[in-house]
């Protein structure tokens, strides 16, 4: 029982992070129907930016309060990652809009390789680990033998995920920007005829899609390396597909499911094949339930 509850907590935390990354995938896929292959690496870059921002704040500027530092890191990480994602969209994807279908995907694969190796060259190939940013935990149940704990950082990750999901949902459902996004999703040409700046809307989608997942990843693991983009990226994509690509709550639900499955698989079976489990879920979902849990079925038109 204790093991189960502990794994549940861990799984939800991991799942929240996957969900946060998946939001980026799902927003971009929703609006331009493209698998943003570089998203995993953008998120890795984001983790590096958060790491550097944290180090600058604590060692150069001497910010004492860890909470204040984290808040600033969150904001700084968002700003710089958005800048990176905006630039990528502007240079690597926008010129290819209207090109043949595979062109943006291949460009994205190139971008992914570029980002990964850029970080490797610029920051070195070693793992970068930080001192734990947030200490402390609640002991929920269980005795000395196996205490079930809920740490502050896990709570932070949950809260940030929930808050961001709510914020994004609000943006998409209630604001004029969200209306423009939904219009572009349905028919870009028609949206443009009705006076929507399609390029701008897509740019904004990329900007907010980059989000804060990198910061959360760093807080969770406390370590990041240049190669950390690919695997979480694929898992987050799995989450987005599982939840129904194009749907924001779907992305988070999918993320939670993937996180839980991975955690329980590792706890009860073996850690060796946990990535195989994630990939198998991806394949099985796409084959048997391609529209996902919350997605709309894709109607084939002639």
């Amino acid at each position, binding site marked *: 029982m204790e093991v189960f509850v502990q794994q549940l907590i861990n799984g939800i935390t991991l799942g929240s992070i996957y969900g946060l990354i998946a939001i980026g995938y799902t927003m971009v896929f929703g609006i331009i129907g493209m698998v943003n292959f570089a998203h995993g690496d953008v998120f890795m870059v984001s983790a590096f930016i958060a790491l550097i921002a944290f*180090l*600058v704040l604590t060692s150069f500027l001497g910010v004492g309060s860890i909470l204040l530092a984290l808040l600033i890191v969150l904001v700084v990480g968002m700003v710089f990652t958005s800048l990176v994602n905006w*630039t990528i969209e502007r240079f690597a994807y926008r010129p*290819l809009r209207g090109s043949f279908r595979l062109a943006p995907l291949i460009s994205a694969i190139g971008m992914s390789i570029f980002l990964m190796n850029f970080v490797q060259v610029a920051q070195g190939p070693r793992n970068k680990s930080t001192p734990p940013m947030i200490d402390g935990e609640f002991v929920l149940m269980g005795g000395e033998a196996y205490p079930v704990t809920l740490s502050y950082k896990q709570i932070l990750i949950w809260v940030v995920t929930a808050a961001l999901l709510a914020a994004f949902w609000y943006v998409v459902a209630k604001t004029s920007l969200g209306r423009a996004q939904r219009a572009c999703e349905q028919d870009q040409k028609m949206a443009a005829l009705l006076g929507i700046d399609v390029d701008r809307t897509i740019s904004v989608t990329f900007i907010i899609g980059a989000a804060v997942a990198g910061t959360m990843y760093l807080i969770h693991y406390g370590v990041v390396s240049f190669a950390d983009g690919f695997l979480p990226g694929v898992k987050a994509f799995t989450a987005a597909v599982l939840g129904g690509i194009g749907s924001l709550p779907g992305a988070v639900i999918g993320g939670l499911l993937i996180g839980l499955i991975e955690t329980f698989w590792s706890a009860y079976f073996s850690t060796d094949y946990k990535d195989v489990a994630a990939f198998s879920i991806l394949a099985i979902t796409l084959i048997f339930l*391609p529209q996902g849990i919350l997605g709309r079925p894709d109607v084939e038109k002639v």
Partner: protein
Amino acid sequence: MSAEAPAAASRVDFARAFKDAAVAALLAFGLFLPLIGFETVQNIRNELVLETRWPLLFNFVALVTAAHLFGSLVVTPWRERRALARRRAEATPSQAPSWLGRLGRRLCYAIGLGVCFIGVVNFGSDLTEIIDFIGAPSAGAGFTVLAALLLTGFLIGVGYVFMRFGSGGAAAAGHLIGPAGVGFLVVFPVVALLGAGWGGAVKWIDNFGIQILIYVMLGLGLNIVVGLAGLLDLGYVAFYAVGAYSYALLAKTFGFSFWILLPLAGILAALWGVMLGFPVLRLRGDYLAIVTLAFGEIIRLVLINWVPVTNGYAGIGGIPRPTFFGIPFNASDQGFAAMLGLEFSPVYRIIFLYYVILGLVLLTAYVTMRLRRLPIGRAWEALREDEIACRSLGINTTNTKLTAFALGATFGGLAGSFFATRQGFISPESFSFMESALILSIVVLGGMGSQVGVGIAAIAMIGGTEFLRELDFLKAIFGSAFDPTQYRMLIFGSALVLIMIWKPRGLIATREPSAVFKEKKIISGSLVKEGRG
């Protein structure tokens, strides 16, 4: 109007250019500030500390600004002028080729004649040796004679291509690119031996020749799946791995020879192609791509984790080397060199491997070329264009897709077992997603469906990255710590993006129809749909 237009085009808005450059500088500063401006390093107590790199950051920003200014002040006006000139040229009816064009063609013709002449002279000078060989056959002289004949043929071939170009223009020479390329590949080891000597040739034949040909083979195999059938496969490397591991395991366990296992590895890979292809039949486009990616990764993870069979990360070593139909390439008395009365040299094995992979590449290209003309090949291309139309015309799309997968996988498996025997050692590291991306980009950059394009793209990508290893002189400029190979994948990644922007249809953007009525017409690649799956 015609007097005003060039004036308008050549006028450069300096204020605007500088404003844009300032914005670009600001953007570059923001982009590079975290990752270039700061470096994370471990100090002695193994803590992470930051070091600043302001000069480097300044250089980056300055570079971006300068490039932007150059672009808006020089490149854009130049391109506008050129576009204007082209429009004007189109407006006036085209005239006979200019004297420059005529001169160029005559020059080509003259070069062609010259090269042919050199070829004949070369043959003449080798004649004595050929006569000697006929009189007293010996293996060493035999090889020299063979090399001489190959070189003569090649020189005459090159001369012929030039002459055709000189007399008929680019259109006439276009059909000869393929045969000329094959001719060059056949004589390449001879050229390398003549140019670099016995010691230096190994690097050229092995690192450039064999390495590139392996990727040409993989590219041709994937070309069937992606270029012809239009199914985007991101996990192609799985079949490469199946071929390599089945050769390694079967050869080590049962001691079968390379020539038995080569077709077997192909068949096994085809089986896997069908097995993995079957569940994804219903998927289309991006989804198909992602599922194949998942399959590729699953196979790699199984190779890593199934330690009792595959030996995990450590890989399999000591894989038997290929033999010349039973004669091993070693220094023993039973070895290839000793049997033919030659001095032992590792070059013979390399040359043999080169011709094996060349044969495999030619086989792949030939089979694909013939299949394109058969009903199944036409069904593939019809499937790529429109699946629904295909189905309504009574084409069995299941079989069509599965044969494409199986055939692509077969060639991947053959390449894999060749890879295993060439390396003598394989590990899951060689079959990562990056390999799949590399092969896919070779197919795409070459222009999907084009075989010559695959060859050119493989030379550019693989040869280019190998070439980086040779750039030692850069160390003199950037300091001894500078390692050009570090930038290999960086350049590769940006090349993918840039070529997609510059030439999204790939390098060879025209398609040759497989069926013709009366005369051949060249089809633009932009009329061909891709990847609808």
